[in-house]
């Protein structure tokens, strides 16, 4: 295949005259991907934990609401959700509020829409992990907590959640890895994260392979770091006597 390899392209100054090199663009994209994914992940953990617990509590209404939440965010494609947050929601807001949002800096708009979208989508998936963690505990634990005189909230807080959270660390690792990969979808609304910078590099330099390879390596790097970090956490919190425990 007649392809002109040119790895030096990363050190060239960009064609826009902003004084950066194409490598700087890739690094900016990497930072954006990491900032977006980490902030969305923190929100997803908090919301996911709450919704996951609600799915297991006795009482029809709370668990019904939590189930509806999970099914809603889990069953709509991520891309569609992103377009809903970015294009549709500002039009549904009261006009003054919608206009005010649309007049803010475009990057802020794109970042907020992306963060909310990724966070809620992932929170539904985290909620399912939390629920399965709680449901995997022997029913005796809950009963023992209640028999000791704990309230339901205290039973969750002191007996069930400390166990459940430690059990779901491995599946949560997958979700954590996923959120970085899913964040690439946000390039479609113009957010200049890693995938978008890669695409931009193709457009500006006509060197598609170098750019795709660099983006691939960058995602791989992020995920290797996350994997080792989570493996360390797993090692610290594993429950003795369970699979993988000492």
């Amino acid at each position: 295949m007649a392809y002109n390899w040119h790895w030096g392209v990363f050190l060239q100054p960009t064609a826009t005259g902003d004084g950066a090199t194409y490598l700087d663009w890739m690094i900016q994209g990497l930072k954006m991907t990491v900032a977006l994914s980490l902030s969305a992940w923190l929100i997803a953990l908090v919301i996911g934990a709450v919704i996951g617990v609600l799915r297991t509590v006795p009482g029809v209404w709370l668990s019904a609401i939590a189930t509806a939440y999970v099914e809603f965010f889990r069953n709509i494609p991520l891309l569609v959700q992103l377009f809903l947050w970015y294009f549709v929601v500002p039009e549904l807001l009261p006009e003054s509020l919608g206009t005010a949002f649309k007049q803010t800096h475009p990057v802020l708009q794109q970042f907020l829409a992306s963060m909310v979208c990724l966070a809620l989508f992932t929170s539904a998936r985290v909620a399912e992990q939390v629920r399965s963690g709680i449901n995997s505990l022997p029913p005796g634990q809950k009963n023992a907590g209640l028999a000791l005189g704990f309230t339901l909230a205290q039973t969750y807080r002191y007996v069930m959640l400390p166990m459940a959270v430690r059990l779901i660390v491995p599946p949560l690792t997958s979700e954590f890895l996923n959120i970085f990969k899913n964040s690439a979808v946000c390039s479609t609304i113009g957010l200049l994260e890693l995938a978008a910078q890669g695409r931009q590099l193709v457009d500006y330099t006509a060197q598609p392979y170098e750019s795709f390879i660099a983006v691939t390596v960058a995602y791989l790097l992020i995920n290797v770091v996350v994997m080792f970090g989570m493996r360390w956490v797993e090692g610290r919190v594993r429950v003795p006597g369970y699979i993988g425990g000492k």
Partner: protein
Amino acid sequence: MFRLTRPLAVATMLSAAMFSASAIGQEPTGTLKKIKDSGVISLGHRESSIPFSYTDDKQQVIGYSHELMLKAVEAVKAELKLAKLDVKLIPVTSQNRIPLVQNGTVDIECGSTTNNTERQRQVSFSNSIFIIGTRLMTRKDSGINDFPELVGKNVVTTAGTTSERLLRKMNEEKQMKMNIISAKDHGESFLTLETGRAVAFMMDDALLYGEMAKAKRPSDWVVVGTPQSYEAYGCMMRKDDPAFKKVVDNALAKVMTSGEVEKIYEKWFLQPIPPKGLNLNFPLSTAVRNLYKSPNDKAFE
């Protein structure tokens, strides 16, 4: 009087019959050989570059560039003296079009691809088929008439286009403090403009007219501003294949200098076109008129 030995005579007759039309009288090489051997030519087309190359409501590929590409296909067929040449249509996007030409999936791509020096490192370009200027679309009552009035405003453009590059460059050089939004495609750019996220949309003028024709109320919008650049659209082919390029170039030059191209222009830019019967009303520019007079494959950069 001289006599040829029998095998040589047969060979001469055969080659004469097969290649007499070939200008240099040699066996075809490169893309022409590939087409001859397989009896198939692969054409790259776009799916929504109105009116250059797009699919209509019956999923037929149509458009100004596509029509010109078919002229080139006819020329290839005549050049190779083929009784039958199968045409394989392959949809391409602005992201994959260069790799697909390079790896042989697509033999020629005519859509809305700008001929520029970066791309010339990877592929070769035919005679230009169209010339656009990069301008602005804005709401009629926005009060924006030209680029300097965009200082401090939100401006949208489509990611990966020359307009995006020019706009960012202008922003750096003239310290205009514009907020530049890079949307995924032209439809999304226009949506950004329509919903009030941006006051202006910078793009190739022909495409702006295309978006305007699709708008809910075309009369709300206007195309303004001094063109910031001119760009030549060309057909992409594999690099270093002069024989194939020559056939394509000659075919395009013939269509242009014979005046046939003006009818094609009128059909796509001055008359209602599928799928909705919209009329772009995009008058023939001086730059395009000059191109038709003297076809060339020069990039504008």
